[in-house]
C-alpha cells in the first residue's frame, strides 16, 4: 500500500495520523480509498467535478511533482504528499 503524508491541517480528519497507508494504483483511486477511510478529506483535495485536484494543490509521488494529477500512477510502495503548488516567476 502507498503511504500518504497527510497535510497537518487535514490530520484532524485522519485521527491525528500524519501518515496513512492507502491502496490505489492511481491518484484518483488512492483519494477515493482515502475518502472511504476518512470521510470528508476528499473535499479538500479534489475539485467539484471530481476530475482534478483542487487548484493550487500539487501531488508529489516518490519525490516528483506529478504533472498528471488524478491520472498519475501510484506504486505499491509509493510515498505520496499533497503540497501547495509552487508558481514560478
Amino acid at each position, binding site marked *: 500500500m502507498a503511504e500518504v503524508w497527510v497535510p497537518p*491541517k487535514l490530520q484532524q480528519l485522519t485521527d491525528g495520523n500524519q501518515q496513512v497507508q492507502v491502496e490505489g494504483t492511481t491518484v484518483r483511486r488512492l483519494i477515493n480509498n482515502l475518502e472511504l477511510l476518512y470521510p470528508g478529506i476528499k473535499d479538500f483535495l479534489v475539485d*467539484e467535478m471530481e476530475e482534478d485536484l483542487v487548484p493550487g494543490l500539487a501531488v*508529489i509521488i516518490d519525490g516528483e511533482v506529478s504533472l498528471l494529477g488524478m491520472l498519475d500512477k501510484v506504486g505499491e510502495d509509493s510515498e505520496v504528499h499533497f*503540497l501547495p503548488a*509552487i*508558481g514560478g*516567476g
Partner: protein
Amino acid sequence: MLEYKPNTVLSNEEFDTVGTNPIRHDGADKVTGRAKYGADTILPGMLYGKILRSPHAHAVIKSVDISAAAAHPGVHAVVTSADWPETSMKLVDLAEGSIHNLGFLSMNVLARGKALYKGHAIAAVAAVSVHVAEEATKLIKVEYEVLKPVLTAIEGMKPDAPILHERLASVASPALRPGGLLDDNADSMRTNIANEFEFNLGDVEQGFKDADVIVEKTTTTQAVHQGYIEPQAGVAQWSEDGKLTIFSSSQGQFTVRDHTARFLGIAVGQVKAVPMEIGGGFGAKGITYVEPIAALLSQKSGRPVKVQLSRTEVFEGTGPTSGTQISVKLGATKDGKLIAAEAELIYEAGAFPGSPVGAGIQCMMGQYDIPNGHLKAIDVVVNRPKSAAYRAPGAPSSAFCMETAMDELAEKLGIDPLEFRLMNIASEGVRRVTGPMTPLVGYTETLQAVKDHQHYNTKLEGKKRGRGIATGWWANNSGPASAVLVVNSDGTVSLTEGSPDIGGSRAAMAMHVAEVLGLPVTDIKPQVGDTDSIGFTSNTGGSSVTFKTGWACYNAAQSVKQQMIERAAKIWEIPDADVEYKEAVLQHISDPELKLNFKQIAARMVPTGGPIVASAGVNPPGPGPSIGVHLVDVEVDTETGKVEILRYTAAQDAGKAIHPAYVEGQIQGGAVQGIGWALNEAYIYNDDGALLNSSFLDYRMPTSLDLPMIDTIIVEVANPAHPYGVRGVGEVPIVPPMAAISNAIYDAIGIRMNDLPMSPDKILEALWAQEGK
C-alpha cells in the same frame, strides 16, 4: 584552492552544440531596434486606451458616472467592470493548468464594488489619442465611501482590522493558493487571513530539547517591484465576425488568451493572442492587466485599441512581490548538526488572496537535512496591489531569514559558515522538512566549488569590510510545452515553439534541435508561435522553459531525424535499420558508397514522400530543484551608511548549461536584482496607502555603476530527467543575495540587519544605536 577563470563552467559532459555560446537568432533585430515589442503594434484606425485609477487605497465604489466622458469629442468607448460578466469566484481551474482564481483576477483588472488599493483600475476610455483619452478619464465621476486601509499583514491580522473582503473564504487547505469568496448564505468569519498552512516533520519539541545551541530571529522585508524595462502594453482588435486578436508582450500568450476569454465571457477559440517581444517580466507578466481592458474597449468601440501603462501605473497598478514578516528558530548540537527548525512566515498577498508564501515555506530550508521541523505559513490580504510573481516568488524573503539565522548559528558554534552549511546540506534521499525526499542535486558540489574558489581563499583586508555567504533553494517547474519543426528544401529547419523568449530561449531551443540533428545552430530558424499556430505551452516562468520546451524541441528533432532516415532508406531501397544518422550525414551501415547529407535529402523531400514536419507536445516530469551559493565582500561607509559591494561570486548547479553565456547572464541578473532588494529597493507608503516612490527616480534600483563584475561558477550535476541534464537556472540566483549581504555587513560592522532594505539610513541608525547615540 583551484584557479578558476572568470565565469567558469565546471562541465560534466561535452556536446557538439549544447554547451557552446552561439549568437542569438533574435540578436540583430533587438540591437538594431527592429524587434517589435508590445507597444510597437500600430493598426489602421487604432484608438488609445487610458485607465482611471482609484485615488484611495480602500473605498466602496458607490457609483460611476461615465456619461460626460462618453460624450467627450474623440471618445469612442468607456468601460467599467459592469461591461463584462461577473467571473465566478468558485475555485475552478483553467482547462490547461493555470491555477489562478479568475474571479479575483477579473476584479483586479477592473474593480467591482470596492477599490482595494490606490491605483486599482476603475474604468477605461478609448479615444483618438492618448491625450484625449486621459482628458476623458477626468470626466468620469466616481462616488467613493472612503474606508481605513490595511497596509501590512500584521495590521490585517488584528481582530479589529478593517476588512477588505466581507465574505473572504478563509481556508486552511493544503492548496494555500486560491482562497475565494463565500456564498451569500454562508457564515462569514470577517477576516483578512486568506489561508494558513503547516508542515510537520519528526518531533520538533524533542529536537529543541536535544539542541545545544539555539538561535531565534525575526526578519522583515518590504514589497519590491520586478523593475522590468518595458511597461505592460497590448493592442486588441475585435473583428466584425466576433474574433479577437491580441498583440502583447507577456510571459504566456496562452494565459493572455485564456484570461481575456474568461473575463469577457467568450470562447477561447474566439481569441488569438500573438506574443510580441518582451522587455523583461520576471514573473509579473505571467498574469494580465491591459489585454482584457483593450479587448473590452475594442469590443465596445469596434476599433483596434492599444493600452500601454506609464511607469507610475506599473508601480501603482501592477503586482510587486509580497512584504513579509518571518520568524525562525534553529537548534543544533555542539558538533554542528542541525536537529530542529521552527518558522512562521506571514506574507502580504496584496488586495486579493495568493501571496507566494507556499513557495516561500517550501524553499526556506529545502537544501538542508533537518530531522525535526514545524513550519507555518499565513497569507493575508492588504490594501496594496495584488502581489505578483517575482523571480523565485516567495523564496528570497524566507532565505533572508533562514540564511542569516544559519550565519548566527555558525558563529555561536564557532564553525566557518560555509563549513556549517556543508555539514548540514541534504544529500540524495534525505527527507526535507516539508516531506518529500531530496533528489539528485549538486548541493555539495556547488558549496565545494565556492570553497575551492580563489575568492573564498583570498583574505579580505581593510577596515569596515566584511564577507558573507548564503545559499538559496528553488524548486523549478515544468509544464506543458509544444514545438513544431519544418524542414526547408535548402536544409534549414524552421522551429516554432510556444515559450515567449525572455532570457535567450530561442537560441537554447534551436540548440536542442541542432544537437539532435547535427546541424549548425544557424540552420535552425526559431520563432515563438501565436495561440493559433502552436500547441498549448504554459508560461515562461518557474525556470521551466529550457527544461520543458527543450524536451519538446528534442522530441520533435528526434522525429525529424527518424523521417530523414526513412527518406534515405526509401531512396536506397533498403530497410530503415540499415541507415545510420551521424552528424547530419545519412549513411548505409555497411556500404560507404551510400551516403547523403541532411541538405541533400531535404532537397529531395517532395519526391520522396512530401514535406518533413514534426511536432511534439510534452508535459515532462522531473525538473529537479536547484541551488545557488553566493559569496560577497562589502565595505560599509560608517559616515554615510552606504554599503559598497566589493566582490561578488555566485555559484549554481545548472545541471547542464545549454548556452553558458545566457546561464551566466541569468545568474548575474538574479544577483543584481537581489543586491537591489538587499540595499535599496522598497515600496514606501504613507498612512493613507499612497505609494510615495512610484518612479525610478525615487525607487532606487542598482545600476552598473553600483556593482562590480559578478563572477559566476556554473556547476553541472546532470539532471537525469532531461536528455542533456538541464535544470532550471533563472530564478534561484535571486534567492541568496540579501542574506549573503546581511551576513557580510555583520562581518564588517558587527550589526545584524534584519529588515530590508539595508539602506544607508537604516545602517546609520543601527550604527548610532550600537554607539549608544
